[in-house]
Every structure is written in C-alpha cells, then in structure tokens.
C-alpha cells in the first residue's frame, strides 16, 4: 500500500480523453518517475493530485485520505507540495520573502492574523529559509527581486520553496527543464540528499532521462492518458515499446 494511491482516474477535456483509467501507486519514501510523450497527460495527472483539476471519475488517496474535493491549500496542508512546469513564484517579492511565505503557511496552517509582529522577529524561520537557500546555491541571491532572475534560478527558487515546507510528497513537473547541466547535476544531488536526510516521497515528471535514471526507483510510462508500463529504471530502459513511443534513438 503506497502513500499515494491513484485509482481508475479519468479526465476529459471536451472530446479529448486526457486520462483514461489511470491507476498508480507510489510507495512511501520512494522516487517515482512519470515519463511519457508530450501531451500524454502527465501534468494533467499532477493537476488532479493537487486539486487544480477534479477527475471525472476515480479516486486519489494520500496517506489513507481522499484528496478529491479538497481545495489546493488543504491538499498542501496534508503534505503535498508541487513544483510547476513553468515557474510559479512571487515575482514582486525578494528571494528571501519567497522563502518565508511557505514557512508561514506551514506554521499558521489556517488563517492567523499576525499583523503587528515583524518579520524580523521570526529568527527561527529565517534560519531555516537561509539553510534551504544555501542548499540550492542561492544564498547570495537572497535579496534579489525574484522576477528579474533568469529562469533557471526561478526554478531552483521554486523547488526550494517547496522543499522548505518539508512535504511528505513532493511533486516535480520537469524540475530541471532549462537548467544548465551543472545545476541539473546539483539538483539531482540535492534531491538525493534530501531523500537521504528525511522521509520524503517524490513523484517526478521529466523528459531528461539522465535525471530520471539517476533518481527514480520506479518509473511509470504514460501514453495517451493511460499507463503503458510501470517498472524499474533498468527494465524501462530496455523496454521496446517505450523505446519506440518515447525514448527514440538517443536513449
């Protein structure tokens, strides 16, 4: 029984069947990669997990509780964080402030009006944010206006914002797309390190096979909205159907 159980999920957009009977189980403390051709429904699946979309049918259980019908912020409070395919950050805020918001969110849970306290007094939170920034090599950029960073940096920031919440399940939608090789490698190391340090489950969507094969414990291949195969990385690499539909000659 995995920490995340997706059962028979279907999702249509008008005439288009984006997801058809998707069933998926992610084991606790594993890294589960979801790969597949463009438009296979990977991001759609993720959207169903975080409450952005509601599946037409099927169930999604996280840690024994259904996430369906919950608001995105409630789902996040259950311990699911998500990194988006195009970076979603607070562009008007500095990097450090970007880091503080997720920490406040964790501390306050529901609404709390701390209008008169000052941010400066939140020493403990600041330290955690700085430690996380150091982990993603962004400490020296902490006072930068986040909108004016290059895209690779935005991605790293977003990842740091998710990680600092210490989620139990981290969903990553192409986390290294557009990242320089060096940073991609750093990211792989970082994710490994985090996994080693604490209990965390990750579901990752990636087109960069280097990342997938370095991280994943299991891989699901999605094609045209249905899981094609699910297996270990080694087996996937050699799988002829995957070769043909997805990896192409460069695998």
């Amino acid at each position, binding site marked *: 029984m995995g920490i995340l159980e997706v059962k028979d999920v279907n999702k249509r957009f008008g005439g288009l069947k984006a997801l058809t009977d998707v069933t998926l189980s992610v084991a606790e403390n594993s890294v589960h990669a979801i790969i597949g051709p463009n438009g296979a429904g990977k991001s759609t699946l993720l959207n169903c997990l*975080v409450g952005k979309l509601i599946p037409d049918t099927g169930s999604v259980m996280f840690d024994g509780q259904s996430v369906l019908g919950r*608001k*995105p*912020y409630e789902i*996040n*409070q259950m311990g699911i*964080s*998500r990194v*988006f395919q195009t970076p*979603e*950050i*607070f*562009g*008007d*805020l500095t990097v450090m*402030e970007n880091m*503080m*918001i*997720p920490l*406040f*969110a*964790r501390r*306050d*849970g*529901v*609404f709390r*009006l*701390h*209008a*008169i*306290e*000052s*941010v*400066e007094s*939140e020493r403990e939170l600041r330290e955690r944010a700085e430690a996380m920034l150091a982990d993603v090599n962004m400490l020296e950029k902490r006072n930068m206006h986040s909108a004016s960073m290059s895209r690779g940096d935005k991605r790293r920031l977003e990842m740091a*914002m998710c990680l600092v*919440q210490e989620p139990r399940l981290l969903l990553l939608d192409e986390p290294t797309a557009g990242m320089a090789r060096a940073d991609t490698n750093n990211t792989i190391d970082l994710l490994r390190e985090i996994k080693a340090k604490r209990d965390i489950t990750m579901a990752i969507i990636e087109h960069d096979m280097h990342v997938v094969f370095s991280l994943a414990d299991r891989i699901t291949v999605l094609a045209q909205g249905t899981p094609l195969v699910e297996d270990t990385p080694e087996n996937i690499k050699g799988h002829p159907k995957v070769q043909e539909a997805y990896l192409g000659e460069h695998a």
Partner: protein
Amino acid sequence: MLGLGKRDLTLFAVVAVLALFAPFILNPFPTDSGLAQFNAGYPDLMQRFVIFGILAIGFNILFGLTGYLSFGHAAFLGVGSYSAVWMFKLLSMNVIPAILLSMVMAGLFAVVIGYVSLRRSGIYFSILTLAFAQMSYNLAYSVLTPITNGETGLQITLDDPRILGVSATADGGIPVTNLFGLEMRSFETVAMGPWEFQFSIGYYIAAVIMLISFYVAIRIFRSPFGMMLRAIKSNQNRLYYTGLNARPYTLAAFVISGMYAGLAGGLLACMDPLAGAERMQWTASGEVVLMTILGGAGTLIGPVLGAGFIKYFENIFSKINDQVVHGWVSFLPDGLEDLVVGLIHPFVGKGWHLTLGLLFMLIVIFLPGGLVEGGQRIRNAVSNRRNRNADAAEAQAASQQPPAE
C-alpha cells in the same frame, strides 16, 4: 524602538514632527502678504489633511499590498460619519464613543461587502465594490432619508435626546463635539510678528490618531501578514499551492482598511458634525483611489501626501478669484496686468478642476511612482551632489597625501 526598523522609525519620526509643527509649516507666508492665500494652516484644512491621510493610509493597506482596487471605499467613510453623528445625537457629544461606533459599523459593512466582493478579483471586484457603494449612496440620498437626512446631510439639532449629555447648552446653542470637555473646534491663535498660527484641539487629536494609524500601518506593512498580502498581489496561484487560503487574508485587509475609512469618517464628523450622502458617492471613492496613486501606491507615506495634495487644491485653489490674482500682479502696468490675470484666470477659482486635472496627468506621466518618487528623485539629486562634493573633497585630500610607498 517601537518595534520599527531604523528607516521606518526615521520616517515615523519625520511624520510625527511634521504633524506636530503643521500649524507652522503650513503657514509660511505672513498674514498680510499676497501669498497668504496659499497658507493652509487653518484648523479645518489641517484636520482634513490628517483625516484624509488616515483614509488613504487605510486604503493603501488594501490596494497597495493586495492590489485589490476597491472603488467603493467611500461607503465606509459615509457609514463612519453617519454612525458618529448618530452617536452625537443619541448618546453624547464626546468623540470617543462616536469614533468607536464608526469603526465598528464600518467594519461590519466591510465584512459583508468584502465577503461578497472578494469572491471575484480584478476589475470584477472593483465593480462589485462600486456597485455596493453606489447603492448605499443612492439609498442614503433618498429612501433612507429618515436615517441619513438625505440631501441635506445628518446634522445634530437642539432636540436630539443625547442621553449622556445635554440636548442644548445653557444659552440655547447646540453643544459642541469634545473629548472629555476639550472642545474640538476651539483653537488658539498665536501671532508672531506678521505671522499668525492657529493651534486647534481638534487638529491635534486628529493628528495623534493619524500617527497611531500610521504606526499601525507600518507594522502591518512589515509584518508577516503584510508580506502575505504582497504575496497575494504577486501570485495567488502559488499561494494556494503553498497551503494558504488567500481569502481570509484579503478579507482581513479589506476589513482593516474599511475600518480605517470608518475611522476617518467618524473623525470628519467629530470635527464638523455633519454627515452628507456625497461622502459615499463614487467620486468620493474615486478620490481616495486618486490620492493613493498620486502619492504612490504601496508606499507608506505616499497616500498621505496624495491626500494632502488633493485637499490642498480643493480648498486653496478654488478660493483664488480674479480679485486675488489682481492683487498679486497689481505692480504690473495695467494692460500687462489684465493679460497676466487673463492667463491665470482659467486655472484658479472656478477653474481649479482644470489645474488639478493637468497636475494629475503631469505627475503620473513624469513621476510613475507618484509624489514619493518625486521626493526620492530630489533626495537622490541632493545626495548625488553631496557625494560628488564629498568625493571631490576626498580626492583633494588624497592628492595632498604623499603616496605611502
């Protein structure tokens, strides 16, 4: 100190000093000079400066931080005023209960209007707030006349009950708004040479309340709550996936700023116990928006400057008539004098709107950050010059020093 950072503390101190010495600062011209027309240091206008300052500070908490542009804030101003006047009519002429009631009532209104309007964002939100305010205004002007006294505005009269006070003073007059006996409207005129300065109780009470409001606003801006509000403005989507429901925060900001508006409305009534329906009209809401943008939305001091700017023009420029202009330029030869008066004429007196409109345009074109940006540019220019001087001095000093090696 006071839980403020150094820069904020300086800002606060500057504002406090300005507020304290406003009667001097706003009266720079001797009473009998031609320029005395530009003096703004009389109680009513000074009170307006600080009261509309409060209104704009509050509005900025909503708009400057969350980006939600309410076009119905005047409704809270009006509710505040009506509540305060009713308090004067029913309870007593002491301003404390009046102010409290106006904040509470405005807060309640804000909860209802905010709860409904915040279901939408962007322009849809603006129009919802506008619709609520316009409904309030239209009803206050007509159907609700028993409560609001319609067109004339709610006034205190000799036959109000005033349970804790007197209906009429001993000499048959209407009692005066006061703070435990300190009359709001009483003021002291101090003459110093050709200058005259007026110190009014009402102004100082309003100024102290403004300083408190300003202080609270600084704290809100610098707090986690304020940061959260800025995050809402920046990217609500991200906020949702970060585990925060934006709605309670925006609603809180809306209610806080509504209560600021209620406070301002209440204070207006304390200074001059009349509440007119026009206070709720969309033009009044628009005025708050203009004040805030003009001064610099999202900055701490900007809205106060913007409020002062608009109120100054409304009260000073509208009073400059041809006779006054003639007075200024009477030293010119006759033909020239008429020409100059003719040139100035369209922009003053009944043309004060024209000047205001032109200034709106000029400021927003040349100072995209509002008046605050103007201030910053001046400061930069000054400090650049100073730096340059300092640099020059340093270079000179260095050239006089023989190199060590």
